């Protein structure tokens, strides 16, 4: 195919990327260097170039650091939990009979394809202090019935649980596919040599799934850095900012306080972090492929 013909095919995609990624990105970069706010919207004379002031402001903003902590917590707790759940469920559905496999696979994958907002609303009902199913069950078992979404630590836990529950099905499908790729003969040899279930898991299954799990860890981490909808619906970032993720904070600064300069600066920081993830993913993948 001639280069010019090939170009013709990619032009639509390139145009979309230009229109919806690069132009906004440059716009945001520009905005992040100004004090653009609701007054500037009314009268452009109120728009000033402020250099890196928005960035230095963020450095000294307690809420920003709390946002980092919240987001990091969800990443550091959520990623291993998601991976673990993905792995266990994948191995489970691959070891049971075909009849049940479809049912479990669908059940575990359903949250992935559901609207985040919808399931978060569902969880808000489940976690309601007085009428929620969770607390009713706890009460029935004579256990304490905490105010899940109104207590700082518990709210973050609840958000993390919802995030993991919503996300692990995707990893499960990927891990299950990777598990199916492992030839049966490898396990036949292991059985002949005398390796039990545990040894088979540790010496064959886990090492052979490691590249997949590593990739999933990166994908999950990148996804959880962009945590937004779950805390937005469940807690609006509260109580006391304890579930205010960085993305939610950006939204809060931009659309509640009309401080688009600061919000843009935050957006730029997040963008750079996401690039870092993308770079990491490319390089680890290349390393695993063995070249």
């Amino acid at each position, binding site marked *: 195919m001639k280069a010019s013909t090939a170009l013709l095919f990619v032009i639509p995609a390139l145009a979309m990327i230009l229109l919806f990624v690069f132009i906004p990105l440059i716009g945001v970069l520009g905005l992040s260097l100004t004090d653009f706010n609701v007054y500037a919207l009314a009268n452009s004379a109120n728009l000033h170039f402020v250099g890196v002031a928005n960035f230095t402001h963020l450095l000294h903003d307690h809420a920003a650091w709390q946002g980092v902590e919240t987001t990091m917590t969800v990443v550091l707790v959520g990623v291993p939990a998601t991976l673990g759940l993905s792995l266990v469920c994948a191995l489970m559905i691959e070891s049971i009979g075909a009849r049940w496999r479809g049912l479990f696979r669908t059940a575990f994958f359903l949250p992935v394809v559901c609207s985040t907002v919808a399931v978060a609303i569902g969880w808000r009902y489940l976690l309601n202090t007085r009428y929620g199913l969770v607390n009713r069950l706890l009460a029935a078992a004579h256990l304490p019935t905490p105010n899940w979404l109104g207590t700082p630590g518990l709210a973050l836990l609840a958000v993390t649980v919802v995030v993991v529950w919503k996300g692990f099905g995707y990893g499960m499908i990927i891990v299950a596919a990777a598990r199916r790729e492992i*030839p049966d*003969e*490898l396990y*036949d*040899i*292991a*059985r*002949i*040599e*005398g*390796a039990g279930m545990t*040894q088979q898991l540790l*010496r*064959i299954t886990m*090492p*052979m799934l*490691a590249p997949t799990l590593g990739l999933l860890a990166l994908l999950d981490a990148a996804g959880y850095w962009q945590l937004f909808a779950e805390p937005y619906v469940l807690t609006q970032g509260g109580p006391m900012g304890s579930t205010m993720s960085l993305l939610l904070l950006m939204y809060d600064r931009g659309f509640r306080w009309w401080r688009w300069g600061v919000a843009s600066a935050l957006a730029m920081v997040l963008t750079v972090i996401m690039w870092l993830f993308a770079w990491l993913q490319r390089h680890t993948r290349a390393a695993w492929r*063995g070249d």
Partner: protein
Amino acid sequence: MARLELQRVTKSLANGQRVLRDIDCAVNDGELISMVGPSGCGKSTLLRCIAGLEAITSGEIRIGEQRVNDLPPRQRNVAMVFQNHALYPHMTVYQNLAFGLRVRHVARAAVDARVRRTAARLGLDALLGRYPRELSGGQRQRTALGRAMLREPGVFLLDEPLSSLDIPLRAEMRRELSALHQSLGTTMVYVTHDQSEALSLGQRVVVLADGAIEQIDTPDGIYQAPRNRFVAGFVGWPPMNFLSEDWLHDTGLDTQCIEYGIRPERLRLRPGARGDFSIIGKLERIESFGGEWQVEISRQGSRVIARVPPETKLQRGAELRLWFRREDLYAFDRATGSRMQAWR
């Protein structure tokens, strides 16, 4: 080292398909026996049953005089080599070789000594640090063999170990395997779908078809005295010619109840003694193999192949007469397919 005995071994699948039917066979201690049959006839299943990877439905398997029906694979004293090598891709050659010993918690120093000794024996010493993807097909197969050898089994089970290799390498590995068997002296069951491989490697050959044993004999026995039409047609290349009635009109042979077969190398371009039979057909094809030609003649849609010395006079499209001795014919009962021993 051990003797392997199969007594009326039967295996049925959940869907009722009988994959193995009344397999009766004894492999002597130290013998190399090859099992051959068309794809899907149950060869792999039989090996897997012997190894204990699959359960049999009825019958008895004995290894070294012990009944092993209910023993798990690791207690059956067998080692297995698969067609696709089944090497662990995340382990080096060294780790692959050491796998079984490590699994059984053999001391590290002992593992090292044994792995290195086996690697040296197979010419793998320089490759111990490599991963399977960095090996050639032959090196992979040698590694898989080495792993099986380190098990020091009573019986080796080899499931088409050479069929993923290219042809020159296959011949070389076949010789190596044969030499290895002689020096190890271990009982080996060698499964293949390639009849020439089975004949050249096995001290005895088991011919399987559709889950049942058709014949067990020495390679010469199988070739010279096939028990039935299936074995006769399966063993030998090009396969035996089965002569339809049209070929034999003027011979006066009974073609009503008997089907006749003749091996391609028994057909000749010239008459020998008086009383020889001949068949005549149109020369369709000449294929040269250097020292030998294969010629194909046809008559009313049925074809006969002969292996003959090169003969420049032959002309494609012309009539060609091929001669053979009456006693070189094989006769098969049309009703049962079994060979009529009395014929020769």
